[in-house]
């Protein structure tokens, strides 16, 4: 494998990991993933 391909693949994996977190951060999710977010009682608000 040429060093260029090696560098491109490494860069793609790193960018992919960053994109994964960026998508999680910016997406408006209804659930936190724990599976119980929709069961609800009032939040503590002022």
């Amino acid at each position, binding site marked *: 494998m040429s060093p260029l391909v090696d560098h491109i693949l490494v860069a793609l994996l790193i960018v992919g990991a960053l994109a994964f977190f960026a998508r999680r951060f910016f997406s408006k999710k209804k659930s*936190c993933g724990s599976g119980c977010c929709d069961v609800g009682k009032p939040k*503590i608000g002022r």
Partner: protein
Amino acid sequence: MTTLVQQAETVRQVAIAGNPNCGKSTIFNALTGMRQKVGNYPGVTVEKKTGRFFGSHGETMSLLDLPGSYSLQVRSPDEAVARDVLLGRLPDTPRPDVIIAVVDASNLERNLYLVAQLLDLQLPVVVALNMVDLAEQNGCVIDVAALREKLGVPVIPMIATKGVGFIELKQALSCDPLPKPAVCVPMPEVIETEARALAEKLDISSDIAFPEALLLLALHDRALAELAHEREIIDATLAAQRRIRDVDLDPMSAQVDARYAWIQKVCHAAVSKPGDHSVSISDRIDGVLTHRFLGWAAFLGAMALMFFCIFTVAQYPMDWLDGACTGLANWVGSKLPASDLRSLLTDGAIAGVGRVVVFLPQILILYFFLGVLEDSGYMARAAFIMDRLMSRVGLHGKSFIPLLSSFACAIPGVMATRTIENRKDRLVTILVAPLMSCSARLPVYALMIAVLIPAANALQKAGIMLCMYLLGIIAAFVMAWLFKRTLLKSETPMLLLELPPYRMPSLQTVALRMWERSGIFLRRAGTVILALSILLWALATYPKPSDPNASPADALAHSIAGKMGHALEPAIRPLGFDWKIGIGLIGSFAAREVFVSTMSIVYNVESSDKENIEPLRDTMRNELRADGRQVFTPLVCIGLMVFYVLAMQCISTVAVVRRETNSWTWPLFQIGYMTALAWLGAFAVFQGGRLLGFQ
């Protein structure tokens, strides 16, 4: 059009009311099948379940499953909704035409209290006497005819789980016209008179004026002041309460006493218990499991057994998984030439994810035990013995379930605090819930115990693990005590707890839960931890030193992660931690188990022998400081575990606390106090241990 309107008008509105866990939902599901809809009551997020079913003559009926309640004198938002529907207070929900009062036959006296109040509502009531089989098993014989006569309403014996009694129930509901209750619970004369007088002042339907007046009389001053009623009504109520007190009666307890006296008479006439004086097996077991001292011994014994199994039973599948991960890393390493890509795949992705996945069997055993304990009915007993301690530190009894859930994960734990009505009690619980050792800490503890005492037997390892879990519980209680006396002062209400009978745990339920949790764990390993491992590898690899012949250790020190670790080192040096542990601490702020991945990446990247990857435990044990001293001494290992017990190393929990408290103040305060606590804990272990002559 006319026909449609007529049809809509003739749909009978049926509501199911009853105590929690009496089988309401089973009856609702059996009647409606798939014809049900779940929504929320407007203004509150209490679940509203409605459905449709056909009566015995084929007529359509609408069914509403009310939240479980013990009484119409409400204690929670759920009970308030049930009361408001029954009294026709909710504009969008019609007052029911008939109530199915579901009663647990094996616990008749307590369940009849709500029925006694329902009879006052002047609505037709059909009593569904559920779980008659369980009552029979307990040696309780119920004379249904006598019960029907005493209650003055139809009583249908049922076993909802087996489909018994539904035909008779539908027949009772299809009666036209539906008879109103023939019996009313007699109240003391003064209460009766005052309630009638107050009812006349209320500007509502005469059907509900009397029960409304009884409820008003039972309210205390503060609750009255919060009502939306006119001042005149509030004053009239207060005056009526004074007159009742003048004859040495309490407006609330006099009503309760009158209802229970009536229930006693009903039960005396309709229920016989031949073996009444014998102690049931459940009671005998409770004699031990809820005993002052034996109860604690049993609780600690159960936890010790759980950790013992975590270390013994899980060892074999863990070894297989570890072997598979190492084999995969070696295979990938042999197929690729020495390059950054190979290092990323073997030292980053496979090492990072693999070292966490290895702990799956231990986490599954943890969930197996939690599931068995919960399904057998033991958890309610654990709540009972813990309540003695919890009430002393000012924690609400309802805090137990959120705290218990936090042993699995703090996120459902924090969300489970929604059942706590008092804002301050709820905040205290949220603030201390992450101190309970969650399953993400398990890999960290297991790794540090393996580094600390590799040759120890499973019992010794379980002992150390148990100490860490106990430390989390103690820290949570101490902090709750502190918060309740400083920031969040409030009275602690008492705990009302129902102890369900012991039963054989359903293996299907437990297995389903384990399956679900393993799915979540593996998804997390395959997404978040994989992405984090790749980023951590990049941080531990780049930028590379200008000297191509630099040693792997120098290259790591030159990387961004190395620089971050070095920057953190002055703050953690008093704890005995070096800069590489610092990298682990930074990485694991995202999630605690990432500490294991980070350590794996840091030591793999640094390792010069890429062909034979040795177990992480051995690498860490052999790690030396610049002066030749061992890095992971016993004090450092224990200090690290203590740090992880007390630190808020979980970004997801921070996000959930932010959402639940609706502000950044509390999550930031939580991060601050927990990090300070963790630092002080690790400092005390390391420096205190050194002062005592330990290493």
